[in-house]
């Protein structure tokens, strides 16, 4: 179990790190997609099939497509290569992240989490009952959130009609 998870963890992490490091925007976005696929596989190994499915669908199918669209729409035109981040920003950012990283690492190191037997996976039918039962309110809220995202996304991204520009 642990070995499998460790291998999958590397498969997730390596593209994620690479995505942050490469300079080409398209490459970077694709590497992110790879990392998300890896994560879906990781979820699968954890026994959360439905979540893995949702992850693959939403991220690989949805978020990455939106990202690529955005890349294409906003393309600088001449080149996909962006100037590298300024040294000051990189160092400042890395210093800040290293603080957080050491915080997380030390808290993990000191934590006394009991090692338990894995819980049994949840059958899909039970999941459906849960969503219609105790989590009904959450389902309703998520519906509203997606509505807002839909309306908002359309409003913000839609080009302005020339008539509107005149009197603004």
């Amino acid at each position, binding site marked *: 179990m642990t070995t499998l998870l460790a291998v999958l963890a590397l498969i997730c992490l390596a593209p994620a790190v690479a995505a942050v490091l490469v300079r080409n925007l398209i490459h970077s976005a694709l590497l992110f997609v790879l990392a998300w696929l890896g994560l879906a596989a990781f979820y699968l190994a954890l026994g959360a099939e439905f979540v893995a499915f949702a992850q693959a669908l939403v991220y690989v199918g949805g978020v990455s497509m939106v990202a690529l669209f955005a890349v294409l729409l906003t393309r600088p035109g001449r080149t996909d290569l962006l100037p590298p981040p300024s040294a000051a920003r990189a160092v*400042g*950012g890395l210093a800040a992240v290293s*603080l*957080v990283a050491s915080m997380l690492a030390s808290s993990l190191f000191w934590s006394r989490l009991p090692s338990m037997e894995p819980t049994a996976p949840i059958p899909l039918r039970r999941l459906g009952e849960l969503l219609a039962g105790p989590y009904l309110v959450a389902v309703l809220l998520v519906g509203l959130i997606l509505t807002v995202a839909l309306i908002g996304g359309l409003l913000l991204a839609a080009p302005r009609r020339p008539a509107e520009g005149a009197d603004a």
Partner: protein
Amino acid sequence: MLHASHLWLIPALPLLAAAVGAAAPRTARRLPVALALGAIIGSFLLSLAALAGALAAPAAKLTANFTWFWAGSTAVRLGWLLDPLGALMSVLVCGVSVLVFIFSTAYLRDDPRLGRFFTCLSLFVAAMLGLLVANSLLLLLVCWELVGLASYLLIGFWFERPAAAAAAKKAFITTRLGDLGFLLGLLWLFHATGSSLFYDGGAGVLEGGALERLAATTLPGGWTAATGIGLLLFAGAVGKSGQFPLHVWLPDAMEGPTPVSALIHAATMVAAGVFLVARVFPLMAADQGLGGVPVHALTAVAVIGSVTALLGALLAVAQTDIKRVLAYSTVSQLGYMMLAVGVGAWEAAVFHLITHACFKALLFLGSGSVIHAAHHEQDARRLGGLATRMRFTYVTFLLGTGALIGLPLVFSGFWSKEAVLHAAELWPVSHLPFLAGLAGVVLTAFYMTRLVSETFLGRARGDGAAHAHESPRAMTLSLAVLAVASVAAGWIGTPAWPWLQSQLTGAPVAAHGLGEGLGLMILSTVLVGAGIAAGGWMYAHSPRADDRAPDPLARRFPGVFAALVARLWIDEFYAATVGRLLRGAAALAAWLERWVWGGLVSLTGRVAETTGEVNRAIDEDGLNTGFDRASDGLRDAAQRYSRAQTGEVQGYLRAVVVGLAVLALLLVWGGIR
């Protein structure tokens, strides 16, 4: 006779007048004036009735309390209080207000905003009266702040003048510094006793049980809660009553119309601080201190009072603006009152407060009459020779002067000042307040002689003075009434017949014969004589020839005079200390900001740069002048800090992340368990 539960009518009348006046259309100029006059006269009659009620039972604290709201399980209660102190003060405030209102109708007759002026005045008087009849420290604070707000509006009434706008702001902000202490004291008191009522049938904060508890609660350092709260409340009084070191606003406040100066910066508003200290006197005296001598809070009051009394008189000596001389004189006299409270004789302080209100209102209105006649010339160097042109004003002004410097036996100021000095002499802790008081007596006589000589004697040294005429009837009427009061108000508290003191304390005060105080009276008479002689010799004997001639005092003692003109460099001191501190802090803060924002790379360069910044800031501050520069320093600090907000969102996020790490570190260090 007015019952305590109807006391709210006294402030309600002017408040109503202000509300209606504010809503009145601009075309109805006379309406707010008529309303204000009617309301204040009504309040005057009501406060007379209240006084009658209070004097019927001077020792009883008649209250009418009610619950204002519940905060959780704690009731916040308010109420009205009828006792001789509040009732006397109400009569005084209403009486002076009536006269000042009448005076103002003539003084501001041609001002297009006459209606607004009276609306503000009514609001001010309403707040002041509310302060006097409040039986709750919270209610008192609310009125106190309203008084401040109204005075802000009135000082800045001629807002076209930048000086007036600046003075209004300075007054508001400086007094607010003291108010912070007041608010803290209130919160502490509320926290410690669960009530803010003064008297509540034994459960109020100024009554037995609460006082004992406050005096028994000790803080680290051996202080008692009573002392701490007393000192904080006194801080509020320091701001409002222009005591050292927050006196800087009062002289500047003379930018307002002169009736305003008379009403709020001589007779009533500044007296609010003294009133507050007198009101909470039982609390301040609750801590018995060493050997039965109340030392802690009251000692501070006595010290500050003495310093202010002396300092105000010294600073008045070198002023050339009539109103500023009177303003510093007010500072000095308020110092006397605080001194008296500090040495334990709060009834003497109230006595002096009453007489001072009469004669200082008279002097201010007299100076207003002069300024009005001399076409708004208020520099004494360009006046002169008005004694013949404005005989009535001159005579009343002389009477006011006599009262202020305490000419013996007849004038009110003599008796009240005698009461103050007598108490100071008997103070067992130190003789310094007494000596400061005596020195103030000489100085007061000196600067008032100088003022009268320069303004009224000699010959006219300017166009305004040369063409002056006596003021209209409405003005002289007010002067006449106040002149009578200035002379006679002292007769209610002479050592031979201490009626006022008996009424205030609610217990008969034994009349001490003339013998006991005779030495002091003779001494102060001699001192007054010396002051008049010195002033007369320097100024009246050989008046300056024209407005550019140097001051006689400056000819003889140039160094001293320069120091006094520069107001003993107190403003500069503020700029140098407060301003420098702020800039140092700002430089430090900017340095920290840049470090976090800009990353470690440029660290070395930044250190050098920032060190230079700090040096530069300190150098520049050495040259700065003025109390107002302290606030500039503050703004400067803010700008430096503001620049750290570079507009780059990743910089913001860096701050967020670093902040998160610091939070976690603090939490781990604090030990979440």
